[in-house]
């Protein structure tokens, strides 16, 4: 960041907090060995910056300054506690902290963020807690921002975070990147959290935009962080998948905030920079020979993204990729999405049969996209009454305003007798 004039230092520190607090915290946790101590030290370091920088100027390496200030504040605190307990011999704690501090380690170490990521996404924590901790501790979002992102009360969220941190401490969840066989399983948990954050941002990108932080951007930032430090194909696959999806962001909705289907989107609005980056990543991931579900979904998104127009989409390729994906991960949602490729290659009736087969399992009964997709096929087959029924069922099962709006339009068209497909 460029160095500002003295009067702007508070906003400079604010921006620094937003961008760097997660990394500073990660290193402090490693140095001090606990969340609580590191968080106190972080707050003290930033308030010291607000006091000292207007007077002394901004240090050459602000982040290193914050880390070393934070750690010295923490030592001060330990010394003070010891003075209170002078009669007790408490030299152990101080010796431990100071000897670690003698090593000249003030520079931010990127691995610290990755280690913290694995701690925050540990499968021993609940999924809610993992997402909340990651956004709070690694992305540096405030508790209020995380709460509004997930439409919960800040107090509920704060409690969830406190409980998770207590478990990290009491059950001794380590700050480490797992090695060997454990890495693959733990990495899955990390990627799952990142993708959850992304999807929360992706599906909410039209609702209540002012209150919600940009979760898509945060997820991509986390994806890059992990991808930079861990040479694993699925990390690249996930980053690629998120970039492909984010590239369509501006084309996904019209000026009213209503959803536009992929087929009808103005492809000139797609972010070509993101598409190029995503395309390179997925090629590397696929070439690794260890193909996973994220890489395959990215490859599918890539076929869409690189088609000159909707008609030029290579649906045979997409169906082939879905078939490989099903072999690795056979889930109802993947089967539902695959039905679109079936509709395009083998016809709408075959796709409808596939969906009706899927409905027998009952697993997707409450999933609005099942009903919306089925309605879409029925509409194409001119079975308007049945289609209407499906759209109404879909409407019952979604709370997203843009989805609701989209479905109401379909229903309205059918009622007006304007089947245009």
């Amino acid at each position, binding site marked *: 960041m460029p160095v500002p004039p003295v009067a702007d230092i508070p906003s400079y520190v604010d921006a620094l907090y937003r961008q760097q607090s997660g990394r500073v915290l990660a290193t402090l946790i490693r140095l001090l060995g606990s969340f609580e101590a590191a968080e106190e030290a972080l707050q003290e370091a930033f308030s010291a910056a607000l006091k000292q920088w207007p007077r002394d100027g901004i240090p050459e390496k602000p982040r290193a300054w914050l880390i070393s200030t934070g750690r010295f504040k923490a030592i001060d605190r330990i010394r003070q506690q010891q003075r209170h307990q002078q009669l007790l011999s408490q030299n152990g704690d101080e010796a431990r902290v100071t000897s670690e501090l003698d090593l000249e380690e003030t520079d931010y170490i990127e691995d610290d963020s990755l280690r913290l990521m694995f701690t925050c996404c*540990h499968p*021993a924590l609940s999924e809610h807690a993992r997402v909340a901790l990651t956004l709070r501790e690694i992305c540096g979002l405030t508790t209020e921002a995380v709460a509004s992102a997930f439409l919960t009360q800040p107090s509920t969220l704060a409690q969830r975070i406190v409980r998770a941190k207590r478990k990290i401490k*009491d*059950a*001794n*969840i*380590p700050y*480490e990147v*797992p090695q060997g066989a*454990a890495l693959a399983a733990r990495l899955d948990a990390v990627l799952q959290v990142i993708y959850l954050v992304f999807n929360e941002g992706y599906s909410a990108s039209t609702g209540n935009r002012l209150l919600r932080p940009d979760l898509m951007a945060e997820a991509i930032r986390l994806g890059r962080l992990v991808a930079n430090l861990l040479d694993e194909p699925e990390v690249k696959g996930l980053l690629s998948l998120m970039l492909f999806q984010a590239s369509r962001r501006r084309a996904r909705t019209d000026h009213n905030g209503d959803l536009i289907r992929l087929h009808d989107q103005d492809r000139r609005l797609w972010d070509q920079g993101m598409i190029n980056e995503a395309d390179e990543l997925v090629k590397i991931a696929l070439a690794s020979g260890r193909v996973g579900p994220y890489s395959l979904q990215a490859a599918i998104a890539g076929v869409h993204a690189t088609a000159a127009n909707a008609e030029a989409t290579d649906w045979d390729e997409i169906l082939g990729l879905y078939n490989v994906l099903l072999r690795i991960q056979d889930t109802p949602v993947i089967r539902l999405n695959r039905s679109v490729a079936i509709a395009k290659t083998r016809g709408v009736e075959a796709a409808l049969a596939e969906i009706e087969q899927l409905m027998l399992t009952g697993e997707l009964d409450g999933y609005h996209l099942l009903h919306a997709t089925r309605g879409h096929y029925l509409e194409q087959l001119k079975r308007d009454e049945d289609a209407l029924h499906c759209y109404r069922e879909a409407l019952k099962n979604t709370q997203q305003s843009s989805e609701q709006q989209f479905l109401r339009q379909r229903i309205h068209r059918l009622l007006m007798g304007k089947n245009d497909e």
Partner: protein
Amino acid sequence: MKYLCLVYANENDLHSLPESPHDSECHAYASKAAERGMLIAGQALQPVATATTVRVRDGQATVTDGPFAETKEQLAGFYMIEARDLNEAIAFAEKIPPARVGSIEVRPVRELDV
């Protein structure tokens, strides 16, 4: 740090499924952990039908037949281990033979505040 690994399983399945471990396998696993200095104590338990519950209320002890609560899975055994952290404890729990038919609850030990 000490962890207690509690082995839960449906008693009817514990010894009757293709995946069910034999006593010799459990014994070998415990012996290996003891050699590495990881195992503090470990035992298999008799079925809950043998359980007796004791309570003391207002100074009066009452003794009743059966476990504290009826559950789908029953406590079938335990391992008390010394592990570096939760990851090491989980790695130990994953290899406890009855984990294949039941589940292992891993609990950190709380040192008494005395």
